[in-house]
C-alpha cells in the first residue's frame, strides 16, 4: 500500500469527506495480453521498457496526473512483481503524488476481459472511471473530454463508454498497422454504431446492416483514427464483463458485442481529438513512430527535456537534440538532429549518430554509425560497428566491426561477435526457451553472432516476416515503397498475435497461431491443427447432443459452443460444421426411427435451434460457407432422404433469415452445387424457381406497402 495523502486530508477535514464521493478513478492495464514485444517482454514487462529513455508507464501516469485523477489502480499480470517494485520506488508513491497508486496483481488473467472481471470481483470501482492501457502517450486536455462525456451521459442514460480517438490518416506512421479498427459513427452525436477490426484474415470489406442507415441521418465510416485505448467507462462496465464472460478483448469482443447486441441497449460514444497528441505503443512500428513523435515534440509538454523521472537532466538543443549532463562526446563525432543521449554515455571519434536514442552509461567507440536506432542503457558498441533502424536492449555488446541491419531487435544480454552481420529483421535473445527447433540453431546462431558472441535467434522472427509479407498484400495495396525504409522495416517486425497473456504461454500455442493465420505453413504444423479440430468436433457435438436431448436453453448451448471455440481457438467454420453435423445427426435419427417424416423433422429441429447460427454466421461469406457445409453433409447421408433434408434445411434457413436470398442464388450457381447429384438438384431447382418468383412478387408488394 502506498502512503495515503494524510496530511492533505487532515487539513481539509470535512471537505475531504465530501470529496470522497466524487473521486475520479483510473484503471491502468499494464499487460497487453499480446506478445508483440517479444523477445524483450520475456524478461521485462512491456510497460517498463524504455521509450525515449523513460519507462513506458511513466507517460501514462504523467497523463493521469494532468488529467486530475485521484486514484489509480495498476493491474499487473505478467512480471507483476517487477511493476509493483517499480511503482513502489517511483515518485508516484510519494506523499506529494497527485493521486494514490495501488497495484492490483491479477496473475491468472489471460485477457483484458479477465482483468476487468477481477476488478469487478474486488469491487474497486465506485463511479465513472478512466480505463487506459499502460502504454499510452498523450497530452490531451482531459477535462474537456470528461466534461463532454458527462454531458452526453445526461442526454443519453444508456451511454456507458466514451472512447478517445485521435484523428490521423489511415497509413499514418503512428497508427498501428496490425488489426486497425474501423469506426462507424453517427455524425451528429459521435455515437459509435459499429466497430470492426481489419484483421489479416478478414475480407477487405465491411458489411453494414441497412437498418443502421435508417436509424441516423449521417454516418461516417472512419479508418483514419488512432485508437489510443483511453476510455471513460461507467461503473457498470466491469459488471458487464462479468455477465458476458466470453468477452476478452476490449474492442473486438466488448465494444463489438455491446454494439451488436439488441438486448443490452447500451450506447458507446467516441471523442475525436484533432488538436492534441494521443497514441499507444502497440508494436515495434508504433514504438518507432511514437519515439519520433516525442523527439520532434508533437507530445509537448511531454518531451525528453521535461525529465519525467526525477533523476533525469535532459536539456534541449536546436534540431531536437537532447542531452543529459555528463555526456562525453569526442571532438570529431557528429550528433545529427533528433537525437537523445543519456547520462554518462561516451561517444567516440568520427562516430555518426542520426535520429537515434541512446540510453545511459553506453560506450560507443570510434567511427560507429548509428541511424534511426534505439540503444538502451549500458550498451557497449565497439569501433566501426554499424547499427541501422534497430533496437538494441540493455546490457548488450556489439563488437568491433559488427553490422546490425535494419529492423533487427537485439534483446537483453546479447553479444554480437566481431565482424558479424546480423541480417534484416532478426530478433536475437539469450533466452533459450524460445529457439526455433527446426533450425539446427546451435550452429546457425553461432554463425550469426560469431564464436565470441552470445545469443540465438528468437524463433518467431523468420516465420513472422514471411507471414507478414503476405498479410501486406491481403490488407490491400499497401505500398511498401511509399513508406520510408525504417518504418517499413519496423512494420515487417510486427508480430500478429492472439489474446494470450505474455506470461507463461506454452510454446505449442505460438506454433498453432502460424497455422491459423498464415497460408504458407510447414506440414508438421498442420497435423497439430487437425488434432485440435477433431477435438473440437467431438467436444462440440457432445455438448450440442446434450443440449438437444436435455432440451437446454438456447443461450446456454450457444455459450458452451462459444466457450469451446475460444478454448480450442478454432474458427467459426468449425463451429458451423459441428452444429450442422449434430443437428442433422439428430434429424436423421428422427427420420430413421420413423418418429417424424423428413419435412417435419427438419422443421422441428431447425425451428428450435436456428438462433444458434446468429452467433456463428455474421456476413455473406459465412452464409455461403454454411450452405456449403449443409451440402457436404447431405452427401454423406443415406441417399433416400438426403436431398429432401437438404432442401428443407435450406428452406428453413431462408424462412428464419439465417441465409439471405442472394446468397442462396449465388450458392445455387456455384460449381459445388452443380457437381452434386441429380436428385438434389432437381428438388432444389423447384424450390429456387419458386423462391425467385416469390421474391419478385413480395418485393412488389413491399414497394406497394411503402
Amino acid at each position: 500500500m502506498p502512503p495515503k495523502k494524510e496530511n492533505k486530508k487532515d487539513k481539509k477535514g470535512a471537505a475531504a469527506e465530501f470529496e470522497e464521493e466524487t473521486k475520479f478513478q483510473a484503471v491502468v492495464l499494464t499487460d497487453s495480453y499480446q506478445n508483440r514485444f517479444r523477445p524483450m517482454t520475456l524478461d521485462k514487462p512491456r510497460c517498463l521498457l524504455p521509450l525515449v529513455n523513460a519507462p513506458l508507464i511513466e507517460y501514462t501516469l504523467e497523463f493521469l496526473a494532468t488529467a486530475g485523477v485521484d486514484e489509480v489502480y495498476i493491474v499487473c499480470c505478467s512480471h507483476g512483481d517487477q511493476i509493483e517494485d517499480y511503482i513502489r520506488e517511483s515518485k508516484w508513491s510519494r506523499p506529494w503524488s497527485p493521486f494514490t497508486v495501488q497495484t492490483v496483481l491479477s496473475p491468472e488473467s489471460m485477457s483484458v476481459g479477465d482483468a476487468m472481471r477481477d476488478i469487478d470481483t474486488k469491487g474497486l470501482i465506485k463511479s465513472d472511471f478512466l480505463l487506459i492501457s499502460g502504454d499510452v502517450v498523450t497530452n490531451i486536455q482531459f477535462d474537456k473530454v470528461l466534461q463532454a462525456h458527462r454531458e452526453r451521459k445526461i442526454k443519453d442514460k444508456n451511454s456507458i463508454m466514451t472512447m478517445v480517438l485521435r484523428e490521423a490518416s489511415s497509413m499514418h506512421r503512428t497508427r498501428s498497422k496490425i488489426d486497425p479498427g474501423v469506426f462507424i459513427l453517427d455524425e451528429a452525436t459521435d455515437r459509435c454504431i459499429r466497430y470492426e477490426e481489419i484483421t489479416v484474415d478478414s475480407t477487405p470489406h465491411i458489411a453494414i446492416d441497412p437498418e443502421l442507415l435508417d436509424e441516423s441521418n449521417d454516418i461516417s465510416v472512419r479508418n483514419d483514427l488512432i485508437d489510443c485505448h483511453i476510455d471513460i467507462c461507467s461503473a457498470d462496465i466491469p459488471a458487464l464483463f462479468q455477465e458476458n464472460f466470453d468477452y476478452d478483448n476490449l474492442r473486438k469482443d466488448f465494444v463489438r458485442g455491446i454494439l451488436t447486441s439488441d438486448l443490452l441497449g447500451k450506447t458507446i460514444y467516441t471523442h475525436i481529438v484533432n488538436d492534441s497528441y494521443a497514441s499507444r505503443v502497440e508494436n515495434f512500428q508504433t514504438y518507432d513512430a511514437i519515439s519520433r513523435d516525442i523527439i520532434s515534440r508533437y507530445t509537448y509538454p511531454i518531451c525528453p527535456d521535461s525529465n519525467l523521472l526525477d533523476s533525469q537532466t535532459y536539456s534541449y538543443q536546436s534540431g531536437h537534440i537532447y542531452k543529459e549532463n555528463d555526456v562525453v562526446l569526442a571532438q570529431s563525432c557528429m550528433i545529427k538532429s533528433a537525437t537523445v543521449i543519456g547520462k554518462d554515455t561516451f561517444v567516440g571519434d568520427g562516430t555518426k549518430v542520426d535520429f537515434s536514442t541512446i540510453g545511459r552509461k553506453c560506450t560507443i567507440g570510434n567511427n560507429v554509425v548509428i541511424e534511426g536506432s534505439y540503444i538502451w542503457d549500458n550498451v557497449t558498441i565497439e569501433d566501426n560497428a554499424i547499427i541501422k533502424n534497430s533496437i538494441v536492449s540493455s546490457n548488450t555488446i556489439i563488437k568491433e566491426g559488427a553490422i546490425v541491419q535494419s529492423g533487427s531487435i537485439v534483446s537483453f544480454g546479447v553479444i554480437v561477435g566481431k565482424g558479424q552481420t546480423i541480417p534484416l529483421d532478426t530478433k536475437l535473445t539469450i533466452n533459450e526457451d524460445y529457439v526455433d527447433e527446426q533450425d539446427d540453431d546451435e550452429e546457425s546462431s553461432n554463425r550469426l553472432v560469431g564464436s565470441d558472441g552470445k545469443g540465438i535467434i528468437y524463433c518467431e522472427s523468420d516465420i513472422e516476416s514471411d507471414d507478414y509479407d503476405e498479410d501486406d498484400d491481403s490488407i490491400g495495396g499497401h505500398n511498401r515503397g511509399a513508406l520510408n525504409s525504417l518504418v517499413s522495416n519496423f512494420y515487417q517486425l510486427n508480430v500478429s498475435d492472439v489474446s494470450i497473456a505474455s506470461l507463461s504461454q506454452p510454446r505449442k500455442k505460438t506454433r498453432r497461431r502460424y497455422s491459423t493465420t498464415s497460408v504458407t505453413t510447414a506440414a508438421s504444423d498442420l497435423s497439430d491443427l487437425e488434432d485440435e479440430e477433431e477435438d473440437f468436433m467431438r467436444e462440440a457435438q457432445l455438448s450440442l447432443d446434450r443440449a438437444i436431448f436435455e432440451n437446454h436453453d438456447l443461450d446456454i448451448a450457444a455459450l458452451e459452443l462459444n466457450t469451446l471455440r475460444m478454448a480450442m481457438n478454432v474458427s467459426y467454420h468449425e463451429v458451423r460444421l459441428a452444429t450442422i453435423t449434430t443437428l442433422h445427426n439428430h434429424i436423421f435419427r428422427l427420420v430413421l426411427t420413423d418418429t417424424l417424416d423428413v419435412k417435419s423433422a427438419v422443421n422441428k429441429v431447425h425451428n428450435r435451434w436456428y438462433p444458434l447460427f446468429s452467433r456463428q454466421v455474421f456476413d455473406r461469406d459465412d452464409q455461403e460457407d454454411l450452405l456449403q457445409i449443409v451440402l457436404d453433409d447431405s452427401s454423406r447421408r443415406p441417399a433416400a432422404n438426403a436431398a429432401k433434408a437438404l432442401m428443407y434445411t435450406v428452406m428453413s434457413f431462408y424462412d428464419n433469415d439465417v441465409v439471405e436470398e442472394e446468397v442462396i442464388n449465388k450458392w445455387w450457381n456455384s460449381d459445388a452445387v452443380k457437381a452434386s447429384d441429380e436428385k438434389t438438384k432437381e428438388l432444389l431447382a423447384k424450390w429456387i424457381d419458386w423462391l425467385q418468383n416469390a421474391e419478385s412478387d413480395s418485393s412488389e408488394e413491399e414497394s406497394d406497402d411503402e
Partner: protein
Amino acid sequence: MSDLTLKTLTHHHKSDKDIFFQIDTFISQLKRRQITGSNDVGMATAHLLVRFVSAARWTHIDSLISDLRLLGKRLIAAQPREFACGNMVRRVLALIREEIHGNNENGIDNKGLSSSSPLITSMFNLLSTEDKSIETANNEKKTGRDLKPYIIEGIQELIEEIRNIEDSIAGMSVEMIHENEVLLTPSPNSKTVLEFLRRASQKRKFSVLVTESFPNETEIAHAFAKKLAKAGIETVIIPDSSVYAVMSRVGKVIVGARTVLANGGCISASGIALACEAAKNHKTPVLAVTGVYKLSPLYPFDVESLIEVGNTGKVVDFSDKDMVENVEVMNPTYDYVAPENIDIYVTNIGGYSPSFIYRLVLDHYSSEDNKL
C-alpha cells in the same frame, strides 16, 4: 525521498513535511506546464517562499541562504525557461543579504545609503568573499531568528509589487500615448499591455493593431482583441506576415516581456522580434512594458538555451502523414529581442533605457546569486 536536503528543515516535523509536499507539487506543476507565464509563476514562487521561510529554522543565516539557493536551483531545473522562479528566489536572497548588511551597519540603516550599497558590496565581494562570511558569522547570534519577520515582510512586499504591477505601469500610459495614434502590439498574452492600453483609452482615443501570433497564441490574440474592443478601443487583428507592411503607419509598438535580461534585451513571445526589427527599420519607437520582477541578472550568452521550443503539432497538423514523416519542424515559443531594437522599458518604477537595465539589476539582485 526528494534529492533536496535542506538543513533548515527536517523531515520529522509535520509542518516541514507539508512544505516538502508543496515544493514537490510545485516542481511537478512547473514540469507539466500547469503553471506558466511569468506573472503566475512569479506569484506562486513568492507564495512558496513565504511558506518556506516561515517553516525554516536556522541558527546561522548562511544556512538559510544556501537552502534558498538550493531550492532556486531545483525550481530552475524543473523549467529552465520559466525565469520568474529564479528571479523571485534571487530577489529574496538579495533582500536577506541586504538585511544582514543593514544589521552590520549597526542599525544606521539609512534608505539613501542602502540603495547604493549593493553595488559596493558586490565590488567588495569580488576581492574578499571570505572576509564577509566571517563578518556575518560574527553577527550570527544577533541576526539569527529575529530576521524572519523582516524576510517574510519583504516577500509580502514583493507579492504586493507583482499584484499591483499593472496598476503602477498603466498609470504612465497616458503620457506615452498620443491622441489618434495607431499602436501595434505583437504580444496579446501580456496582461500588462492590456491594462496599459485600457487605462490610456480612458483619456485618449487611439486604435490598436494586434498581430495574430500564429500558431501558439492565436486564440489568446482573439480574446485580447475582444477585450480591447470592449474597452472602446478600435482594434484590428492583422496577420503576422503583414507587420512590416503596416509599420509605416504605426506610431508606436508596444510589447510585453517574459523576462528582461541584464544586457537590456528581452525574451518574449515568438513574433515579437520580427515586429521590433520592422519597427527599427521604420524608426518606429518600441515600448516594452514590464514589471521589475521580470528583470533577470542573466546575460544572453547562449540565446538558444533561453528559448523554449513548443508543440510541433501546432505548426503542422499531426494527421498530415507526409509532413509528419518527412519534415523536421520546430516551433519556438519565445523570441529574443536585442537591446538595440527596444527604445524604452516602461516599468513600475519608471521608464528606463535598455542600456540602464544593468544598473536596475544591480539594485535588485546581489551579484553573488547570479549563478545559484
